[in-house]
């Protein structure tokens, strides 16, 4: 018996796939239909089905992560995201289906599953590639003010200014305070987007209007749409000028 697990966070699509598999595959048994990655993993472990049809974007764990814990189950990815699917296919040599899946394409897939030898795909490599593709840089800064937590996208931050105990975060419409040190921020911010220009300042390069030297030879950074003028520390001038 060809046992199958189906995981898709859109329940209607999961049910539909289950029905269509039964219709065009004689000896198939759909043993589980689940709607998120965590359930998919636990059902995979419990039932150890021969095949799994996995959506890639799912809550809990995504399809690629689920595939990595499958031991002998052979994986078919089903996704509306061709860019994912192509990468998955190349890396793992399993089949992939792009939604909406036509009956013809589904039949082809079943044929492929029946004919191919049950080689394990190199999912470890696939997962590694996926992790590298994840955004490694800081994207959101949480800052508390009383009972509310304001969430700042790093793209709206003009600059960070280190204070005695806190770090000040300056945006177009105000100033906020966080506890993260400049050193820690530097480690986590995208160096393509942020640069340190002073011992106590990290500026968002996207908001730099121009670099100016005043009569005394000090370098100053002027910002777009904001009156603040930031001095450039002497040690940082040469670094900054190359940009």
């Amino acid at each position, binding site marked *: 018996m060809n046992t199958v697990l189906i995981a898709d966070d*859109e329940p209607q699509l999961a049910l539909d796939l289950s*029905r269509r598999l039964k219709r065009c595959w004689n000896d198939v048994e759909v043993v589980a239909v689940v709607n998120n990655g965590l359930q998919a993993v636990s059902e995979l472990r419990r039932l150890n089905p021969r095949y799994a049809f996995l959506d890639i*974007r799912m809550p809990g764990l995504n399809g690629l992560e689920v595939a990595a814990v499958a031991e002998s189950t052979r994986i078919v990815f089903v996704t509306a995201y061709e860019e994912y699917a192509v990468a998955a296919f190349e890396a793992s040599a399993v089949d992939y289906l792009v939604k*909406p*899946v036509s009956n013809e394409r589904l039949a082809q897939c079943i044929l492929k599953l029946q004919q191919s030898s049950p080689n394990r795909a190199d999912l470890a490599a696939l997962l590694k590639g996926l992790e590298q593709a994840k*955004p490694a840089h800081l994207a959101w800064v949480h800052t508390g003010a009383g009972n509310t937590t304001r969430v700042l996208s790093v793209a709206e931050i003009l600059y960070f200014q280190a204070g005695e105990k806190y770090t000040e975060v300056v945006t177009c*419409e105000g100033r906020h305070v966080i506890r993260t040190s400049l050193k820690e921020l530097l480690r986590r911010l995208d160096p393509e987007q942020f640069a340190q220009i002073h011992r106590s300042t990290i500026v968002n390069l996207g908001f730099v*209007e121009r670099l100016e030297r005043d009569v005394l030879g000090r370098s100053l950074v002027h910002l777009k749409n904001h009156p603040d*003028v930031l001095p450039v520390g*002497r040690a940082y001038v040469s670094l900054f000028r190359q940009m």
Partner: protein
Amino acid sequence: MGPRTNSLPILPRSWRQGEHRVVLLVLAICTLAALLSAKAHSSSVVDELTISYSIGLTSYGVLQIVRLFFRGRLPAWGLVMCIPAGFLLGSKVAHLLGAPDVAAMMFRNPKAMRGPILDTLMIMAPITAFFLYYSHSRLVSDELERERRRAAEALHAETAARLALLQAQIEPHFLFNTLANIHSLIAEDPDKAGLILEELNAYLRTSLRRTRQPTSTLGEELELIEALLAIAAARLGDRLEYRVSASQELRSQQMPPLLLQPLVENAIRHGIEPAIGGGLIQIQVSQVKDALELTVTDTGVGLNDEAPQGVGLANIRARLSSLYGSKGQLALYANVPHGVIAKLLIPIETHARLQ
């Protein structure tokens, strides 16, 4: 400089940032003025230096204190006011240090002091004038340049938004996912398939109409968003719940497209879709003074470090600033216990400008 000055919070931040060079310049000018004055009036060099340094440094100090009040940006008249104040205070300080009290001498006998004061002015005036002229001419040319760039950027933001709007019409994942759902329902549940098809129809019709108009109304925007939410709810099953509330009179308000919609799309895509248990999306519109306040609240997974940086948000901010300057605002908050609250503030009275 260094940690010692850091522990003196009274000093302006600029002290820690290379202001010492200004002090050195002041001292150099004072030395020059004192030596010239001593030679011209054959007076004591020590006295002249004491007076000169006292006045120079006191003026500088007064200037720094005044600058604090103007948050670092001193208007020209403030600069002019600092000079007599610095002169009076400085000469008192010099007197305390044992030099003759020049201020008192000037008040007692203005005629006798006319010569030295004129000398000082003749040295100081060209130097001051040079600095003022230098910074002013720079300001003017910079202002022009900046204005030109700002106009170009506003145009660019508007063009980018139009392009994004065109792209949003045919956002392939949304369209294909929706079609896949309709396809899957046709045989089993034709009524439901028909309902989703109607919503898709409404969505496409409204968004196509919108590409031909520069502005839209809040009502039209909400129509589009309700269709979007209905489709998403059909796709996600019982994982998505939504509520839209706006009074009838507000619905006729003019409102530029592509400000609210991306926030709702984010709430679906980055809030509810990744949440195993799903959640609720609420859209509320109210009038706050002269502005529309649009709030999109979701109870999804929230903006943790895993959440990708939103390109959509950057587009919204660029559009807000090109349309309304600092009057249009977008702020994100963390919802409790999880999720995101996005607040959009748009001024009402300036909507006519959009035409």
